[in-house]
């Protein structure tokens, strides 16, 4: 869980920073988007790096889901008779929503790829003009897209808040002082990442980016 999660988190950081290029203008953003296809050239043919990265991410996602399924199955098997009176978990809301949150994030990722990578669900869907696709996607009249995007990212934020702390712990974070730091770091990281991602659709919907 921790190792595959870290791989996915590294991608999320790079993706978020890349998204913020939208504030540097259309030419710069489109140039960045096209550069992504050329990373590694001339050592690698065009788009090869992108496909290697996609393959690695797919493996990481599948391994992450696989580990989660194993844990969920063990968890279910470990308590065959449920409690008649079950108090809700009060320690940690984020921890409580890891499994269903993960499912929501997966569905969002599928939608997101169909929307802004392949363009099938995008109103414009022009691979040559990523800036235009983003602006068309989050247009004010398509507020429901922004709403879904926001909900999915808040879910991701909760997932990361518990996930990041849990990864520190799984990899051997062992002191009480370190635990407090790890929890704060996980919270700050989750808020910063979600904030960074949400800047883009809200900039489009408010007209800052047009």
């Amino acid at each position, binding site marked *: 869980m921790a190792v595959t999660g870290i791989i996915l988190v590294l991608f999320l950081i790079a993706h978020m920073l890349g998204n913020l290029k939208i504030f540097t203008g259309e030419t710069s953003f489109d140039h960045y988007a096209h550069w992504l296809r050329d990373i590694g050239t001339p050592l690698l043919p065009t788009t090869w790096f992108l496909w290697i990265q996609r393959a690695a991410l797919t493996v990481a996602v599948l391994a992450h889901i696989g580990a989660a399924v194993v*844990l969920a199955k063990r*968890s279910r098997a*470990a308590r065959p008779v449920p409690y008649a*009176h079950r*108090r809700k978990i009060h320690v*940690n809301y984020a921890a409580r929503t890891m499994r269903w949150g993960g499912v929501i994030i997966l569905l969002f990722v599928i939608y997101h790829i169909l929307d802004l990578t392949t363009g099938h669900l995008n109103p414009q869907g022009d691979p040559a003009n990523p800036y235009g696709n983003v602006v068309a996607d989050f247009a004010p009249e398509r507020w429901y897209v922004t709403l879904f995007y926001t909900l999915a990212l808040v879910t991701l934020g909760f997932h990361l808040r518990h996930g990041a702390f849990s990864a520190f712990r799984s990899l*051997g974070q062992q002191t009480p002082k370190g635990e407090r730091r790890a929890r704060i770091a996980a919270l700050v990281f989750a808020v910063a990442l979600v904030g960074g991602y949400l800047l883009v659709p809200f900039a489009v919907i408010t007209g800052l980016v047009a």
Partner: protein
Amino acid sequence: MNLTLRIWRQHGPEDKGRMVTYPVQDVSPDMSFLEMLDVLNERLILDGEEPVAFDHDCREGICGACSLMINGEAHGPQRGTTACQLHMRQFSDGDTIDIEPWRARAFPVVKDLVVNRNAFDQIIAAGGYVTAPTGSAPEAHSVPVPKADADAAFSSAACIGCGACVAACPNGSGMLFTAAKITQLSLLPQGQPERYTRVIGMVDAHDEAGFGGCTNVGECASACPKGIPLNTIGRLNRDYLKATAKRSGTPGS
């Protein structure tokens, strides 16, 4: 106080079991929770009914025998105490109280509220001790132990093995118990020679007993009557990672 109890009744391991409602009158707020159950049982015996079976021994929070899930909380609503240390003043007149046994595949119900916690003994048997006979207490200055390590080892050694961590865990994991035992020994000099074989053995025994996997939720530490800290699980994880990376059986490695 007049209360309504809903208690899990199960004749034996094979019985399906059910929640049965019992009204209890004139409960004193100064009674302990177990004394209140004693009052109910005396009445059941007089009425010719089968009394409710529940585990108890010291009734002062040090033996780890009592094991009641009270209104969905291991050892009841009061933090840092066992069910036997819980007083009826924590409840109000007219309350309905649900009492259930620990629920885990590794802790099968023997009868009513009594579960078999032999799985914990199996975890201990897999390495939760020091093999060498250490004799009587040595001269305290001969092996210096840093104060911070001694304190942390002591707070882990406070574990009474009651099983509340398993009962409270949404995954039915016994990792806090296992981690408390690992931490207690791995922080002290006596535990060093077997430190890495111990962690592998105990975690394997934990998994084989049918406990769930830890997902760092933290319900265990909040339910623990002895306040075993959650970071002990980090100590276990670090020892486990080191143990799996080490080449065991090679002299000097």
